[in-house]
């Protein structure tokens, strides 16, 4: 038995096919979900992929957050459904208030594409079980609006509760407060991050590293209890 992992396609999603490929390479079954459908097709987990949904017009994620599919995602995430938001997906999760804080334009005002070093701070979420806390990994980063901000109270709370899942190491590529690259909700089922694990799953492609595959094997293990 394997797990069925949904990947939502919004208009302007770009990495939906890549995410499906990563899920397949990890041994799970990808299920395409459509933004206009409320139906999550009984999936065991959902990924909101990267891209520029609705062109990132207004604010990244601001328009997608109101799509029919997000109504169901919000409801089920609150009930424990594992949800991963990658880049644009992370932005959608903050706009939907499933994760605290907000994403703003990079402090240097440019799009940035690079092989980014990250530290795994929390290996206890639904999506990071195959990593070890403190481990350094390299995952491609590519975004225009990657600056994570929240007020000090929220940041302190996130840190105190161990909800900072990833931190940028050596170089903060966008001005994110406290070098935050990814966070989780209180229950640990919803995770959002700016870098793109689905682009680090094959040795020949992209940066040639496979550090991202563990996201997808982590969730698979969690779901099938292997």
């Amino acid at each position, binding site marked *: 038995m394997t797990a069925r992992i949904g990947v939502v396609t919004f208009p302007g999603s770009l990495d939906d096919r890549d995410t499906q490929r990563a899920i397949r390479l990890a041994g799970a079954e990808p299920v395409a979900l459509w933004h206009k459908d409320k139906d999550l097709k009984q999936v065991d987990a959902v990924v909101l992929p990267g891209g520029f949904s609705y062109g990132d017009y*207004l*604010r990244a994620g*601001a328009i997608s957050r*109101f799509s029919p599919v997000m109504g169901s995602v919000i409801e089920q995430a609150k009930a424990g459904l594992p949800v991963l938001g990658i880049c644009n997906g992370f932005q959608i999760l*903050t*706009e939907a208030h499933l994760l605290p*804080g*907000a994403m*703003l*334009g*990079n*402090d*240097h*005002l440019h799009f940035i594409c690079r092989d980014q070093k990250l530290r795994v701070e929390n290996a206890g979420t639904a999506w990071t079980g195959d990593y070890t806390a403190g481990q350094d990994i390299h995952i491609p980063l590519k975004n225009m609006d990657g600056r994570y*901000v*929240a007020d000090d109270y929220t940041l302190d709370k996130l840190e105190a509760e161990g909800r900072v899942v990833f931190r940028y190491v050596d170089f903060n590529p966008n*001005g994110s407060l406290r070098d935050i690259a990814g966070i989780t909700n209180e229950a640990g089922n919803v995770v959002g991050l700016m870098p793109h694990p689905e682009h680090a799953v094959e040795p020949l492609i992209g940066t040639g590293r496979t550090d991202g595959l563990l996201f997808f094997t982590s969730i698979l293990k969690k779901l099938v209890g292997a």
Partner: protein
Amino acid sequence: MARVVVDVMLKPEILDPQGQAVQRALPRLGFEGISDVRQGKRFELEVDGPVDEAALARIRDLAESFLANTVIEDFTVKVEEVAEAAK
């Protein structure tokens, strides 16, 4: 038909690199005497029908839930005079 303007600006405590970039460029352009620049968004909404208090209240809701992200942004809503001072 009337125009309602919603201005959305980053909260003062949030870093505004765009405004800063403009400010940094000013000396190069021979500009002195501007101590701070902030850059935000301006939405012009053309409203059918009268802009009464009820309509304005709805637009404030819209601004609060959609046009601005109040985690990081403040907004103001104004009805615009028709004859605007051009340039």
